[in-house]
């Protein structure tokens, strides 16, 4: 799985950080998402999918193929 984030869409909700703290963080200054792990291991996939789905700005995209 490969994760990409669109910083320009992110509204700083932090939902992704609450759902998958090993993969997402937020910048201190403006709260925009920081991707900690571009290719998370399989045990994290479920929570990453949940984070992508819960993101209110549709700012997280997943490529399940790679």
């Amino acid at each position, binding site marked *: 799985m490969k994760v990409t984030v669109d910083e320009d869409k992110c*509204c*700083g*909700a*932090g*939902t992704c*950080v*609450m759902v998958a703290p090993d993969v997402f963080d*937020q*910048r*201190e200054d*403006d*709260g*925009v998402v920081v991707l900690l792990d571009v290719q998370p291991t399989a045990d994290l996939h479920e929570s990453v*999918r949940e984070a992508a*789905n*819960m993101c*209110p*700005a*549709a700012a997280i995209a997943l490529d399940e193929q790679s």
Partner: protein
Amino acid sequence: MSAAGSVLVVGASAAGLATAEALRRGGHAGPVTVLGAERHLPYDRPPLSKKVLAGEWEPDRVRLRQDSALAALDAEFVLGDAAVGFDAATRTARTASGRELSADAVVLATGVRPRTLPGADGLDGVHVLRTLEDSVALRADLAAASRLVVVGEGVLGAEIAATARTMGLDVTMVGPQPAPMAGLLGPLVSGRLAALHSGRGVDLRLGTGVDGVTGEHRVTGVRLDTGEVLPAEVVVVAIGAVPETGWLAGSGLELDDGVVCDSRCRAAPGVYAVGDVARWWDERLGAQVRLENRTHATEQAGVVAANVLGADRAYSPIPYFWTDQHDVKIQVHGTLPPDAEVSVVDGDLDGGRFVARYRHDGRTTGVLGWNMAKQTRIRRQEIIDDSPAPAAQR
């Protein structure tokens, strides 16, 4: 319902889409139909008063999911055809074009529509903002004008005023409250917001009601309760919204400023409501609640989908919304009662970044961040720690 039954979702926007997605994630294998009045595939509304209105984003960037994701969802989208009638007993919706759609479970996700100003309908230059078309039309009108009056000092009015300033217009904001979003944020923060808007050149004419608009074919001004007329080339009316439930009259469902639901978001056997249109019994708050915000649409959809598939989950969220105005991003977790005690707990008021904590009856009920998103999200935990035990189910 078994995972193989059929589901009809009425309303093809944030809440409707999220419901369909959560059904599939929850293992639902049966047919899913999503019926929508708009001709567009699901798109996101928050950028309409910000990026799209400002011209920073092309309109098609607001789409919520790309074709591949929608194909994988395997749902049938019936678009550009509004539901005009519903029978809760047979779970059958009738559409404007004459279709009849029935399903084992129906999820109502028709959102809200903007309230309008009596007498202003049909006058050129008067706008509301809810849809993509609204945003594009307002942008075009603003590009050709120099003087905008925003009627409404709530979140949407304040965002539009801020965006229009970046487009170089003379902007006046009118409304009965003493400061932008005063009823929502309380005096401390709304006072800051008033200073922010004034400092960026928005003329605040607050604390006065609006009587109507002037003009014959095209609007020429906004008339205040005081009799004064503020000249305007374009007027945006942003005075709140009403749940889109007209089509449910006579359906057998209880309607009262939204579709009335139990704590499971169920309005009748096999009928659920989700998003802006739903009013449900919140067990933690011991009250009926209806929310109009973007994260709620997705969060409630997760619970509704689970319940459609046979779970028995109560919905009791910690509400969250954000707003962008000028260069300030405000984040609000929880609820901010009007008589809450407000104190700054991170940053400082004058530094342009802070977190304010709202306490009521000895509990933290909400936190508000001003350009401090991450710290605000961390402080959200205090709301959870202070939450009362759930009240008895209704």
